[in-house]
């Protein structure tokens, strides 16, 4: 019990605003990556970055408001992210085998 409060106190050394700003920055980097990078692997990485910035935000709030529910959610998000990565990477491999590239703009046949 004592350990937990100690840890909380240590975490609260950094003000909440800093966590929030960090998360926003991370999220925007991720979003920019998703929107601008053309390599599918990079896009994937950026998505993971966005997910994790959200996770970080949730955990930070959890600590500051003494509410463990958010941490449970974080675990769910991690599981979903892992599953998504498994499926997504498998698709990526198949795409590479078919079109010999991981360029996102090569996949523009589905239109009109």
């Amino acid at each position, binding site marked *: 019990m004592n350990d937990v409060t100690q840890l909380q106190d240590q975490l609260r050394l950094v003000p909440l605003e800093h966590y929030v700003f960090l998360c926003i920055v991370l999220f925007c980097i991720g*979003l920019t990556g998703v*929107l*601008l990078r*053309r390599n599918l692997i990079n896009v994937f990485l950026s998505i993971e970055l966005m997910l994790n910035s959200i996770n970080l935000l949730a955990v930070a709030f959890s600590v500051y408001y003494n509410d463990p529910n958010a941490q449970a959610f974080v675990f769910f998000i991690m599981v979903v992210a892992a599953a998504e990565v498994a499926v997504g990477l498998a698709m990526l491999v198949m795409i590479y085998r078919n079109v010999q590239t991981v360029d*996102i703009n090569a*996949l*523009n046949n589905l239109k009109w």
Partner: protein
Amino acid sequence: MMVPTLPLIGFAGYLLYGQYLKEKSAGLLASLWIILSFFLTLILFFQLNESSPAINVHLFDWINTDDLNIPFEFRIDQLSIIMMLLITGVGSLIHIYSTGYMHGDEGFSRFFAYLNLFIFFMLILVMANNFVLMFAGWEGVGLCSYLLIGFWYKDHENNKAANKAFIINRIGDLFLLFGLFLLYKQFGTFIFSDLEQNIAGSMSSPEILTFITLLLFIGATGKSAQIPLYTWLPDAMAGPTPVSALIHAATMVTAGIYLIVRSNFLFALAPLTNEIITFVGLTTSIFAGVIATKQNDIKKILAYSTISQLGLMFFALGLGAYGAAFFHLLTHAFFKALLFLGAGSVIHGLHGEQDIRNMGNLKKYMHYTHLLFLIGVLAIIALPPFSGFYSKDNILSLAYIQSPIWWIAALFAGLLTVFYMLRLYFVVFWGKERMSQDTINKIHESPWSMLLPLLILGILSVFGGWINAPELLLGNKWLEHFISPIVSIHPSHLPHSTEWILMAVSMGSILLVAVMTYQKYVSKAHVPLIESNAKDGSFVNLIRNKFYVDELYESVIGKSFLKLSQFFNSIFENQVVRRITDGTGQLSLYVSENIRKTQNGFISYYLFAMALGVLGILTIFIFFAL
């Protein structure tokens, strides 16, 4: 109630299995349903007497809203039971007759399906206890009439005739509907018995009542073929002859009479309407009678005669003699059905010949038909003791009470009937044979299935008048007493001596005209064939061409309607409607043509759009929703 259901079962059965049935079993089965319902009606009839209250049979609520409640409910009283007897009785006779007449027709079971459906709707019409249900039956019989006139649909002329009947009926029905709406607005109910009470209690202005009754009357003129909506009936003869007998002589065309008798409590309060009805009825009667004298198609003559007789009934209705009109309706149903079926027998025997100029001396070849047709003729020209005599004499004496002028006019209409019916009879059954030798060899008497109904109708035509014989002739006016709960008895003020004199005068004039007709068509062997070749006076030509009424309607109403339609077609349709409808299509085409360019297949582009969208939604939430 089983009575109307049985014909419906018959119809449904034919619809589903008609094509699998053999001709013989199809005819028998169809007749069986009607005969069965006739006997059920008969049982019901014996349970009723003149003092028993109306039986209401509530089947289900049909239309049920806050202030409009229309039950699907039958009302069986003295008036409707007699109509039901008439419909099922004459209906079953004509069904039996049709098994012989329609023998070998490819649409045999279709014919019986329609006929059964017709009986069903007609029963609904007379059994309904409110105007809306009656209107349903009213439209239903109109539909069946249309289907049966156009029964031989491969001939385009028949289709035209069917359309004409349907459209002209629709005009009448529209007015009837207006009348019903007004009635509801005024009295708040459609149910006959409630209506009767509400009217007795309310102090509505006579103008409104006159207006309502006039609208109802116009509806009745459509169905019952009166001026100005009578032109469909002669054309309706394009249908098979049993249909002409059942629908266009005995039952459906009397629906208008029934409507007025049923709502006599309304009409009794509108003296102006009554005068109009009297006038229209009498005019129609004389007008149609005049036209009938120069027609050469055996069925057309009978059709005009039907119009003329219906006119006489309306004449009586207008005089307030509801009982007399209803009585004439019954006897007319008997002898006109007999005449039509007799004509059908002649046509059948001559293999489809309908022009009386190509007949003659048929009494030598078709003894039974000749005899029974003669009975029908004697009944319609109102010779005692045949049924037509009682009913016509009844109307005539009531007309005399109102005014001797009415009496003379009605007698004139009756004398016209004598002339054209005897002309028809003599030309067809007497004189020389004018058929080709080939046809003469093939003339045959009709089978028993056709003669038996003729025989029964013949008996009814002879004795049917006794149900309402006046005191003068040892009768007791049974019919008028029987329907007295619905129609109050019309008191007769005439002294017996006057009545005898009137009767004698009418009999004398009838015999005089009969002898003249005999002179013209038998002794001098005058044949209409020669007539039409000769250059007649313009008046005769006018009659022969039916006073050009059809042409008048065509040029005045038809043409102007066509002009109006063309006008709307060029202005409204092309300029407005087409612009709107086509414009909608072109607009969406144009828009989608441009929008589809955004769907370019680049995933990053989509993602960017998605991010923008999320951003937009968040902005809205933050700045507007919070």
